[in-house]
């Protein structure tokens, strides 16, 4: 599957910010859904989860469900399991991490149910997921809310958060992953 070029995908993604504002005065952001789901399904006395999640988050949960559906539509129609066309340097770096199969959106050697029985698999899938949930809640947003909508609105907190995203990402890519996957 050939990737849509950045100059097509980027502007399309950016347009979701005004679209959501015009449709219902909603600010673009995805990670709040993690909070809404916790508020909906987990009985807890924590004040953070005591609010009317249907009123505040109903729209966003519907949007998130749509993302799942969008992924499914591409999965069924666009054969996303073809070989990824990556930069040649990236190919070399990832081969050094032990990746040999470059078919599909994610390397199946690292992201499969059997990989969950290995230490790198558990750290990447469970540990990584835990950090995503904790970090986005703490920072009050993720790539969509801070790095796209917040930066576009010239909000300083979002700039700080985005710099944090990259600091953490560089640490994960250059230090943690090579340590985990060294053969």
């Amino acid at each position: 599957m050939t990737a849509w070029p950045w100059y097509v995908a980027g502007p399309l993604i950016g347009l979701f910010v005004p679209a959501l504002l015009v449709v219902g005065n909603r600010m673009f952001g995805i990670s709040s859904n993690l909070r809404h789901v916790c508020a909906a399904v987990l009985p807890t006395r924590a004040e953070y989860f005591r609010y009317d999640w249907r009123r505040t988050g109903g729209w966003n949960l519907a949007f998130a469900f749509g993302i799942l559906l969008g992924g499914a539509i591409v999965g069924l129609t666009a054969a996303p399991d073809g070989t990824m066309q990556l930069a040649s340097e990236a190919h070399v770096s990832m081969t050094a991490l032990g990746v040999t199969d470059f078919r599909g959106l994610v390397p199946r050697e690292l992201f499969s149910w059997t990989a969950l029985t290995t230490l790198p698999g558990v750290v990447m899938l469970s540990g990584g997921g835990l950090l995503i949930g904790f970090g986005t809640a703490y920072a009050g947003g993720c790539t969509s809310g801070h790095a796209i909508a917040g930066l576009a609105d010239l909000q300083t907190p979002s700039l700080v958060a985005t710099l944090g995203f990259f600091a953490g990402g560089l640490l994960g890519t250059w230090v943690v992953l090579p340590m985990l996957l060294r053969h």
Partner: protein
Amino acid sequence: MTITLTVPTSVPSSATDSTAISRRVAGLLVYATLGTLFGIVLTRAQVVSWFRIQEMFRFQSFHMFGVLGTAVLTAALSLHLIRRFGVRSVDGTPISVPAKAMGTGTRYWLGGSLFGLGWALVGACPGPLLAVLGSGVTVFLVPILSALTGTWLYGLLRPRLPH
């Protein structure tokens, strides 16, 4: 939980309820449709791919930077035009973008870094987690459930964390 319903006395309550419900369902369908389009763009642009995230954090490809950069520029230009022309949302209310409180800033750099680390490990942020699962990689249920656990932990620890 108590639910309070206020119904105008002049209108039969069943009619009001069904109108309100159908309006709410229609609203949710609009957001679900927008989400579907968003999911298609994310997946077709491969920004949901662990491979592309690795390329980005290794500065080996311009693709992700191009996507994020033009997304921010497009959103910024849109917000500028919305303000310039006083655009209202379809229900007639003025469009307002809430400002985020800086506080000490700890939550932004620390929470942001923790999320960034997770982003590099899984190769997906919250939206893409759902898109990858939808595309058929069922093991992504694990990072999604873990992310819910992470948010739940934050909710419990929140009173003790510096913000």
